[in-house]
């Protein structure tokens, strides 16, 4: 652990890197959020987009948001981890360039090329000649995903390499000596929780990118006429393995930021207890299991897969949510926590993560899924644990970091803005949940008049959320100059 020195050049470089990753993420969020507002206005019947444009916007919004959330979480964690393991700034800059090239290509594919197959790009739709977009737009979009995947892969490999070095092997980084001695092995205390989170995510991240790359290459090969059409069911399995996992892993990565930030505001250390170590170890295997829940209504899948999906959905995420949220709450309990933007956002995030999680669990119950599959319930639950979960954690960390580095603190108005973000987000996702409960389909460019009420009620909440994050963004961007300069000198 010789090169772990918060005053060192490496740590300084990682602070700057984190600022760039998270600034990019926030910028993307604001743009993609505007597209989200546009879609909700369309669904309210207030602003009519022609279907092709709606679906271009939907595809870009979906892919862009997932990419930005992952980028923000990676950036934040790259810095937070620097007190425990030593990542390579050079490699992570390379990852950034590749990743951003991917995002840029995706914008070109969707906005200029008109690619509109949805962020999940399920074959055979992307290359179906009967659709409005040209072949090149689909090809560019597939390459975009490949590049984003490679960027993520570089991050994962870097984490795994550094964690192995710091903890004498991956088992060490996952706290095995501590885990298997039932927490009694005092000689080997477990690694900090964020190392557990980053290691678990990175192991599965490598698998995810591998599966995704295989599918994307096969799709490209099909586009080039090298192979016949892909088996649609197999492709759907691969795509959801890739898509579901990437989305899921983002959340657990962002959870690492909670472990890094909350202790500062409650004035207590957050050590990994035995259940925490266990939960992240369960996650490594568990996160692979739930993806078949995207295929519950494909009755051509064997029943066994469905049951694995249902049980897996409950088994995978639940332990981590429970240990993080209850751990967070016990940490906060009677701590005299500082009432500030990061702690408000983290409180919203812990709360929303559970809300979204429960929504997800119910939907992953096959009997319920029968009446929920591909209704707005699905966007409802994932918007909840993104907006009011993972993404809130990223903004909390970003606000915290820019605050520390610039020495500027939040004002009363900042706290109001943080509350608006939470309340606006809550109102927005509630209207999505209610639409889903009423059976309103997702991905409908036009909503029946009787469905429009949900989007109409939701719109002011979206605007409140936008004003809240807009205010915080202005504050954070204004701090960047000083933060950037101090990042080099600051001793964290």
């Amino acid at each position, binding site marked *: 652990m010789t090169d772990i020195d918060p005053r060192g050049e490496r740590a300084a470089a990682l602070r700057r890197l984190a600022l760039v990753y998270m600034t990019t993420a926030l910028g993307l969020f604001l743009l993609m959020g505007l597209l989200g507002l546009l879609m909700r206005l369309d669904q309210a019947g207030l602003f009519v987009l022609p279907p092709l444009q709606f679906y271009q916007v939907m595809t870009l919004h979906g892919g862009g948001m997932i990419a930005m959330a992952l980028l923000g979480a990676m950036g934040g964690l790259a810095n937070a981890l620097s007190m425990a393991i030593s990542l390579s700034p050079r490699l992570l800059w390379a990852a950034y360039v590749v990743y951003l090239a991917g995002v840029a290509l995706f914008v070109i594919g969707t906005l200029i090329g008109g690619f509109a197959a949805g962020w999940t790009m399920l074959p055979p739709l992307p290359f179906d000649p009967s659709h409005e977009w040209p072949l090149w737009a689909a090809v560019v979009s597939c390459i975009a995903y490949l590049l984003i995947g490679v960027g993520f892969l570089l991050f994962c490999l870097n984490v795994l390499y550094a964690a192995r070095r710091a903890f004498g092997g991956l088992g060490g980084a996952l706290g095995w000596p501590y885990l298997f001695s039932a927490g009694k092995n005092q000689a080997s205390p477990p690694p900090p929780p964020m190392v557990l989170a980053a290691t678990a995510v990175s192991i599965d991240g490598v698998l995810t990118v591998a599966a995704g790359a295989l599918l994307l290459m096969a799709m490209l090969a099909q586009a080039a006429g090298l192979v016949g059409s892909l088996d649609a069911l197999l492709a759907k399995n691969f795509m959801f393995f890739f898509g579901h996992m990437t989305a899921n892993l983002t959340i657990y990565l962002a959870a690492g930021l909670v472990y890094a930030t909350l202790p500062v505001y409650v004035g207590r250390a957050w050590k990994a207890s035995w259940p925490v170590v266990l939960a992240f170890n369960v996650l490594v295997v568990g996160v692979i299991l739930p993806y078949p829940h995207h295929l519950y209504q494909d009755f051509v899948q064997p029943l066994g897969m469905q049951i694995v999906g249902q049980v897996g959905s409950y088994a995978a995420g639940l332990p981590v949510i429970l240990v993080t949220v209850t751990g967070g709450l016990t940490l906060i309990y*009677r701590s005299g926590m500082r009432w500030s933007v990061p702690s408000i956002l983290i409180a919203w995030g812990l709360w929303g993560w559970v809300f979204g999680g429960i929504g997800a669990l119910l939907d992953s119950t096959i009997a319920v899924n029968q009446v929920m599959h591909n209704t707005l319930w699905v966007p409802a639950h994932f918007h909840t644990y993104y907006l009011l979960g993972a993404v809130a954690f990223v903004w909390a960390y970003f606000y915290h970091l820019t605050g520390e580095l610039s020495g500027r603190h939040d004002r009363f108005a900042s706290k109001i803005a943080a509350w608006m973000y939470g309340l606006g987000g809550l109102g927005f996702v509630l209207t999505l949940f209610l639409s889903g409960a009423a059976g309103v389909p997702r991905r409908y460019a036009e909503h029946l008049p009787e469905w429009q009420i949900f989007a109409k009620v939701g719109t002011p909440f979206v605007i409140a959320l936008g004003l809240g994050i807009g205010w915080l963004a202005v504050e954070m961007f204004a701090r960047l100059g000083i933060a950037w300069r101090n990042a080099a000198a600051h001793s964290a």
Partner: protein
Amino acid sequence: MAKFLFESGQGAFALTLLFFFVFSIAFAFVIYWKGFAAPKPSTTDHPKLVRTEAIWIFVALTLFLVVNMSSIPYMPTVISNALAANSSRNHIQDVNILAVSWAFDISNRNLQVGQPIRFSGTSFDTLHGFAVYQPDGRLLFTMMLIPGMPRPTSLIHVFEKAGTYTVRCLEYCGTGHANMQDRLIVVNNTSKSSPMAGSIEK
């Protein structure tokens, strides 16, 4: 009760809120009264709270497992298999569906209450969905249609109420997706009349 919870979106929403309500109260209590409001860090022993933590995790896990297990009899495939086993004597009516962007070809749109019907569907081009909505607008069931499969997706369903059921595509299939719909007319069982194939066109 269980039927309401597992067979309607409102039921799931109620269940979500139920779970969430308990959690939210505990959450608000910790955050507001004990988190921010405490003037000074207390001396409460942190390790003591670990027991509370363990209990809470155990309770939550058990609750969710109960929901999980009790839902199994309501799984569409399980219901279908049971119907198939029981209906060997009174025959199951077959309705075949072919989805093409952006319309359905349904072999029979006039159906009867109480009659087990096996819906079997495939897709001609891309992924499509076949979702049946009740006359009151709520979703009744969904299945996914996949092109190029050796066998169709199928499900056996018994309608309980007469009325006009809307069929919608629930798997994104391109720009016409939101307009891809059809109808099923379900009438009360009067006589053993022969079904007239595809007599009602949209």
